[in-house]
């Protein structure tokens, strides 16, 4: 909670002004019963028209003051709330940008979206309510208590005699309420997860004839939610009747003693009316409580979820402009092992090898053998658990991380383009890139011609709301983007899988002469044959490393792959 609402501190003056305005409104509400006493005791009972007029105008004036204060309170609270929410949202987003991929995987993207939108909205609501009614309800109760003493000490005493009981009752329900409603929140999350899973597995459920089985499982968790809801809501609903009973009981006590006090003329009728009025106002204040408990529980759950993000570890680093190197870099792995956070299994085990400047290495291996993980370690997407990785003979942890990443051109398995024009996407590689260097890269990546065929050419919009590109086009664009960067190390993670043979050959030809160290993950023997060396991974260990010929001679696994690919083609285009 604290971390989240710390962001509101920046607006403390606006919040304070808003609260003062709220107090003005409250003051008017608390003073009204005094006016009614005035009308009765000084006006009606004394037959004074003058006084009656006086109080009428006082009341009108007070209403006006309260209204103006209320309107301004709305302005201030809306402003503070939104400014706070905006800061919070930006802070969460900035935090996420500092996440390592491991941390990011821990929160998946849908929960992060919820946190950035829904949960921020809930926290905003709490601030908004806080400046308007959260404090107002208890203050109304306390204010009414005090004012009833001001009007008449004796009646005030009788009125408040039972209120301690009420406080105890509210405290107990609040405690149970928060507990039960946090549990309800968890159950709701559970139901959402269940439905999500069910929808994703629909085909599987159907072909296994498990519809009834799923319905039964759902019925159980939905039933648990129903039972908790009934219990929680009943608890909340019991507040009002108990409250009414206690407050009405206090009123009865007041009326009962008022008889004697009136008889002995130690109080006036107007005072009694004012006290009754305060009792009603207290009731109004108290009746907000159950609503407040539910709202606060929800807001707390949201704030906690946001806090998880704000407190997750991040890596921070300086951004600078760095000199481009003209040649490729060497990369060396020294006894590197790696396991993902929270995982027990080592994905990479004692990997040692060196790639020389401008070498062309192809990495092969089965799914799950650790190929992608291995290349991910070079730009420090993850840090090795054990061992050392050197780029240009310097430990990558000693490089400025931005400078290191500046050296790496990385094309991941799934080609991702961002909303914007093709040209803008190319600028991701280098924001200062000239047109010629962009065209040069797209020509090398074999996509320039295709781009020119689009209606808007380089201004064609891509990404979520952009044109539909084929898998091959996306892959080539994402390779071009990496080339724009003029990297020292070019990593292609199975990123030519959707290209047909002739395009792929042209692509390899075009980038053959660039001075860059190339690391290519591929399934294709044809690609491997053209490499300087091949690194074969098996269950996280180096199974073999060397030229195609060497591996043919020495590696059984390599021969198996060659054999499996020699028979039969495929219907893919």
């Amino acid at each position, binding site marked *: 909670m604290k971390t989240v609402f710390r962001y509101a501190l920046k607006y403390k003056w606006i919040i304070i002004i808003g609260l003062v305005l709220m107090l003005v409104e409250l003051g008017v509400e608390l003073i*009204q019963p005094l006016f009614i006493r005035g009308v*009765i005791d000084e006006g009606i009972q004394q037959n004074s028209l003058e006084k009656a007029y006086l109080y009428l105008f006082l009341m009108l004036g007070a209403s006006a003051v309260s209204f103006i204060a209320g309107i301004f309170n*709305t302005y201030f609270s809306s402003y503070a709330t939104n400014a706070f929410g905006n800061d919070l949202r930006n802070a969460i987003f900035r935090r996420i940008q500092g996440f390592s991929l491991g941390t990011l995987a821990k929160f998946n993207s849908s929960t992060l979206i919820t946190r950035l939108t829904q949960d921020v909205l809930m926290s905003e609501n709490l601030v908004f309510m806080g400046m308007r009614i959260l404090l107002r309800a208890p203050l109304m109760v306390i204010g009414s208590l005090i004012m009833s003493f001001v009007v008449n000490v004796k009646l005030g005493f009788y009125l408040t005699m039972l209120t301690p009981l009420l406080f105890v009752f509210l405290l107990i329900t609040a405690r149970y309420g928060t507990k039960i409603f946090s549990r309800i929140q968890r159950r709701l999350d559970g139901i959402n997860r269940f439905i999500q*899973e069910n929808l994703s597995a629909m085909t599987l459920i159907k072909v296994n004839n498990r519809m009834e089985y799923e*319905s039964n499982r759902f019925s159980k968790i939905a039933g648990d939610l129903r039972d908790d809801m009934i219990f929680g809501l009943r608890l909340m609903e019991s507040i009002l*009747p108990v409250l009414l009973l206690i407050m009405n009981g206090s009123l009865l006590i007041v009326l009962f003693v008022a008889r004697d006090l009136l008889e002995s003329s130690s109080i006036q009728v107007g005072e009694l009316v004012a006290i009754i009025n305060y009792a009603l106002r207290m009731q109004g204040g108290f009746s907000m409580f159950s609503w407040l408990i539910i709202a606060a529980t929800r807001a707390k759950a949201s704030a906690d979820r946001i806090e998880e993000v704000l407190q997750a570890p991040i890596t921070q680093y300086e951004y600078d402009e760095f000199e481009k190197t003209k040649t490729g870099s060497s990369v060396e792995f020294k006894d590197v092992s790696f396991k993902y956070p929270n*995982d027990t299994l080592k994905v990479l085990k004692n990997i040692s090898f060196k790639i020389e400047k401008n070498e062309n290495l192809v990495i092969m291996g*089965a799914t799950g053998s650790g190929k992608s993980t291995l290349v991910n370690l070079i730009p420090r997407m993850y840090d090795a658990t054990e061992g050392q990785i050197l780029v240009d003979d310097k430990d990558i942890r000693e490089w400025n991380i931005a400078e290191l990443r500046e050296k790496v051109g990385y094309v991941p398995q799934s080609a991702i383009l961002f909303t914007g024009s093709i040209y803008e996407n190319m600028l991701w590689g280098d924001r200062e890139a000239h047109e010629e260097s962009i065209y040069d890269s797209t020509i090398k990546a074999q996509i320039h011609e295709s781009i020119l065929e689009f209606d808007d050419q380089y201004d064609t919009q891509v990404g979520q709301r952009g044109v539909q590109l084929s898998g091959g086009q996306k892959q080539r664009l994402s390779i071009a983007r990496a080339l724009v960067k003029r990297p020292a190390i070019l990593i292609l993670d199975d990123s030519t899988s959707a290209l047909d043979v002739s395009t792929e050959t042209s692509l390899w030809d075009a980038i053959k002469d660039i001075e860059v160290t190339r690391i290519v993950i591929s399934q294709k023997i044809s690609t491997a044959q053209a490499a300087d060396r091949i690194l074969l991974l098996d269950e996280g260990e180096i199974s073999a490393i060397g030229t195609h010929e060497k591996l043919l001679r020495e590696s059984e696994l390599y021969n198996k792959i060659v054999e499996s690919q020699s028979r039969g083609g*495929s219907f893919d285009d």
Partner: protein
Amino acid sequence: MINFLREPFGQKRILNKEDIGNKKNKRRANDITGTLKRLWKFMRGEKNVIIFIICIVVITSLLGILGPYLVGQIIDKYFVPGLFEGVGKVLLLLLFIYVLHSLTTLTQSFLMVGASQRTIFNMRYELFNHMQYLPIDFYNRRQHGELMSRMTNDIETLSQTLNSSFIQFTTSIITLIGTISVMLYLSPILTVLTITIIPLLVVGIKFITNRTGPLYKIRQKTTGELNAYIEEVISGQEIVKVFSQEERVIKDFEVKTKNLRDVTFWANLYSGMIPKLMNVLNNLSFTIVAGIGGLLALTMDNVVTVGTIVVFAEYARQFTRPLADLANQFNQVLSAIAGAERVFQIIDTDVEKDHGLIEDTNLKGAIDFKNVTFSYNKDQHEPTIKDISFSIKSGESIALIGATGAGKTTIVQLLNRFYDVDQGVIEIDGIPITEYKRDVLKDNSAFVLQDPFLFKTSIKENIKFGNLDATDEEIIEAAKRANAHSFIMKLSDGYDTIIDEEHTSLSTGQKQLISIARAFVRNPSLLFLDEATSSIDTITEIEIQDALEELMKGRTSIIIAHRLNTVQAVDRLIVLEKGIIKEMGSHEELLSHKGIYYKMVNG
């Protein structure tokens, strides 16, 4: 000052004149009465409870009116004139009323909570259960996100509304009528003066909702845009990092979130005015009652008494509250009804037809396609499957091969009645498949799909999903035959290991082996392998191939694949092209035929 109110804190105005009160594209229910009737059907089981609740609500509302009236009477009849005889009796009556009032309030809410939550449960369950039986086509045409929101948001809104609105609605109306009647009885003049605030309320609320409506719409759109941006950046985070573009996306985000901030500011501002409006109207009614009431008491005889002022001061509150509630809840109720309508739309979607009569049969698995034609869309100009005929003997293995769109998957879908044929007949063991109960077809077949989906539960439960009656021994036996046993035993909790992306990283190959074990434990006579190895690389495929071949033994198997090396072990191959069978025969036969298959193999 005026400037501050127009553009406070430098916040630019968002709504133009023509936007205000614009009611276009409001997402509201089309058929409110119809939807309410349907809703009532769900509550039918609670009919008696509801009737009882209505009776109690009437009593509660009347007691709520009676209490303040008696207090006024006590003041007028006893306290003002200074007569204190008999006041004790009235106080006792008042005590009785108060206790009863609390009891009825408690009873009505307790009953209502139970009735509404049970109803919501029924709806939730009915919707979920219905969805399990909807044709697969339904899911292919809709986005998961949209269905999720039906099942969660819409139901939640309904739950909240049903709980509070029903009682409040009834109470509000009775209280409104009751208080105004008593007020008229006590003092017509003061009543007329007091209800002058109602037009003010209406005008005020209209002023506000005319602005909040369009603003909410803009906010929804802006939020949607922001969500899309977040999704894009988070899923492309690898790229953002490797290109060191964090600062750039943060800046973009700040621009987008600023838009949201602006619109939310105005939306909050206007909606925040509602309580302030209520407040000032409360204060005004109090002023009218106390101030003008006082003047009337002084200037005219016996028109207004002190007691009347006391009663009115309370009643004025009692009737502005329900009015505010009604105004506030009106929109919530409407959106809940619209939500219910969307839920009913799903419930009204036809489930898969099941006219079959044959039950509990063990199929042998001989398949015949006789002149089958099928299109997914009826306005499609070329059918997906064109007049296809072929036979598969019981226990035979067949591979369907061909390019994407050739109709391979369609054949398997038709055989499993995901869709029904347009023309022709499909028979199993000589009987048209429509004459079997769907359960028979499903219970006799097993699938291994391209994406090996595992549930977030233990490995054991995941295998057991194939056959709920399987014993632990049978599960282990199935895993052994699927080549999964050895790696499962290496996991920390063996078969009880919970599948959880965060903590257990199984490779795609391993997941696929578990799903093969799931098919084993089903022990089907018909087996379908739908691109079971295509998301797996060639090396892993070698391992899985053994398990699949073991699984195919003695079962009628249909394999869909586009990589040819995986299908050479089958008895016969069917080569499809644009919904037509081009070639059919064994590997050797097709090779000697020197047609499409020959060309592909020698690529």
